[in-house]
C-alpha cells in the first residue's frame, strides 16, 4: 500500500478508486498515525536527549564539585608540603650548624683530653720524683744524724740505701 501523488488517486484496499479532492478516510488515518508516530518519536528523542543532558549536567555538577574539593585539598596539601619543605630546609641547616659545632667541640675535647693525658703523665712522673726526693732526703738526713754522733757505718748505710732514689731525682730534675 502507498500514496501516489502523481495521479491524485487513492487506492483502497478493496480496489476502489476515489476521485481527486475527495481524500479517503484511510489515507487520513494513515497520515494521522504517521504523524502521531513521528511526534512520539520526536518527543521520545527530545525526552531521551533531555534526560541524557540532565544526567550529564548532574554528572558535571558532581564532577565539578569533586574537582573543586580536590583542588582545595590539593592547595592545602601543597601548602603543607611547602611548609614542611621550608621546615626541612631549616632543620637541615640547623643539623649542619650543629654538626659543625659538634665537630668543633669534639676537636676541642680531643685537644683537652690530650692535654689532660699529658698533664697526668707529667703528674705521675712528678709524683715519682717527689717520692724519690723524699726518699733521698730521708736518707741524707739519716746520714747526717748518724754522722753527727760519729756513727759512720750507719751514715754510709743510710746514704747507700737512697743512692738510686737520689740519682733518679737528679736525673728527673737536674
Amino acid at each position, binding site marked *: 500500500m502507498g500514496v501516489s501523488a502523481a495521479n491524485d488517486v487513492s487506492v483502497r484496499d478493496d480496489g476502489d478508486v476515489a476521485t481527486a479532492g475527495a481524500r479517503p478516510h484511510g489515507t487520513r488515518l494513515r497520515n494521522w498515525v504517521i*504523524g502521531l508516530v513521528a511526534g512520539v518519536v*520526536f518527543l521520545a*528523542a*527530545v525526552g531521551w*536527549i*533531555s534526560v*541524557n*543532558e540532565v544526567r*550529564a*549536567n548532574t*554528572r*558535571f555538577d558532581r*564532577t565539578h564539585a569533586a*574537582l573543586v574539593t*580536590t583542588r582545595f585539598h*590539593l592547595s592545602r*596539601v*601543597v601548602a*603543607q*608540603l611547602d611548609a*614542611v*619543605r621550608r621546615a*626541612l630546609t631549616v*632543620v*637541615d641547616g*640547623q*643539623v649542619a650548624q*650543629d654538626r659543625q*659545632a*659538634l665537630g668543633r*667541640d669534639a676537636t*676541642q*675535647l680531643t685537644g*683537652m683530653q690530650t692535654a*689532660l693525658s699529658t*698533664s*697526668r703523665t707529667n*703528674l705521675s712522673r*712528678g*709524683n715519682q*720524683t*717527689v717520692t724519690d*726526693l*723524699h726518699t733521698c*732526703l*730521708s736518707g*741524707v*738526713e*739519716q*746520714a*747526717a*744524724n*748518724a*754522722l*753527727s*754522733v*760519729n*756513727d759512720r757505718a*750507719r751514715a754510709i748505710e743510710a746514704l747507700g740505701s737512697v743512692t738510686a732514689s737520689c740519682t733518679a731525682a737528679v736525673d728527673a*730534675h737536674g
Partner: protein
Amino acid sequence: MARRRRTRWAVTLTVLAAVAVVAWAAATDVQANARVRSEQTALHSSVDHLARTRTALAATSYEQALATNQRTAVTGSIASTLDQLSSTEAALQGTQAFAFLQGVDVGALQDCLHGVSGALQEIAANNDDQAAQDISGVSGPCLAVDGGSNDGLVYPFDFPDPDVILVGTTYYGYATNSVAGNIQIIRSTDRIHWSAVGNALPSLASWAAPHATWAPAVLQVGGTFDLYYAAVVAGGGEECVSVATATQPQGPFIDGSSAPLECQPTLGGSIDPYPFVNTDGTISLLWKSDGGSLPATIWSQPLDATGTAVAPNTAPAALLIPTQSWESGVVEAPDLVLSGGRYLLFYSGNNWNSANYGVGVAGCAGPAGPCTPLTDGPVLSGDSTMQGPGGESVFTDPSGSTWIAFHAWATGSVGYPHSRELYIRRLDLSGGAPSVGGAS
C-alpha cells in the same frame, strides 16, 4: 491541491523543526557530555596530582622527621661532648693545680735536700758551724716538706730532748748533739719560726767524750746561764751530768769541770738533767738514773746558789719510778713545773726509739718528792702527724700562756737514725690533769 500543498509544507516544516530541535538537543547533549568528560579528566588529573603531592608530603615529612631525629641526636652528642669537655676541663684544671702544688713540693724538697746535703758535707768536714747555717737556711722549705706547722712542728730537723727558755723577747732552744754540734741551739722570736744559731758547747769538759752530749737544759742565774747536759765519761764510762756556763743564752758555754756534777755509775749513769727553781730561790737538779741495780728512776738534789755545784750535805732523793704499763719500765726526761701551788712533774716513758714513747705527768709534794702519776696513761702520745713524743720542756710565753716543747718522729719515720723533730703545742694546766692542746 493548495490545501494539500500547505499541509505538505507544514509537515515538512514541522519535520524540519523537529529535526532541528533534535539536532540542537543532541548537540547540547554532546557538549554537556564533553564538558563532563573534560571535568572528569581534570578531576582525575587533580586527584592524581593530589595523590602525588600527598606522597611527596609524606616523604618530605619523613625526611623532616629523620632530620629532626638527626638534629636531636647531634644535639645530644653536643650536650654529651660539652659535658665531657666540662669534666675534662675540670680534671685538667685539677691536674694543673695539683701539678703546681707538686712543683712547689719538688721545689721545697730540692731546697731542703740541698741544705741537708750541704750540712752532711760540712759535718763530714768537721765544720759544724757551717752545717748549722746550711740547716738553718732551709728550715722553711724543710718545714713545708713535712707538712707545715699546723700540727705544732716548728723545726723539721733532728732536735732531740729539747729545752726551751725565754730570755727577754727571744726564745732559745737547746737539744742533744746532732747536725749542729755537741749541743744544738736555735732561736725564735715568735715560737714558730726558728733558725739555727750553731753549737752551744764548742768544747767538752776534759773528762767527757764527744758525740754523746744529751738532753741539755739551761737556767739563768743572775747574769749567768747554766747549761746542764749529759756526756759520756771518756774511756768507756757511763753517761753523767755536767754543767757549763755562759754570759749569754746563745753561748758559747764553757765547761771547765774536771768531773761530772752528778754521776751514778752503779745505776747505769745519770742523764736528762733539769734545773728547777723553787719559790724561795732554791735550785734543785732533777735527772734520771739509767738502770743498774734499780729501775730507771728520776732523782732530785739541791744545788748551791750558783747552780753549778751540789748543795753541801744533801743527797739525791728518788722522785719517781716506773709504775704504769705504758711506761714499759722507763721514766726519764723530767721537767718540774710549779703551777697554782702544785708541783707537776712531766716525764717521758717507754722506749725512746719507738712510736710508744710518750709524756706522762705526776703530782709531787715538792722538788724532793714524793711524786705520784696523775693519770693512768700518757698526757701526750703519738697521733696521725707524729709518733713517739718525748723529751718535753714546759715554758711560758710573755702573755703567761704555757707551752710544751717536745721531740717526735714523723709518722712513718720512727727510729734512729731518723730525725726527732721539734714540736711546740699549747699546754693547759688549769684542770686536774694537764692537757696538751693544738699548735696555736
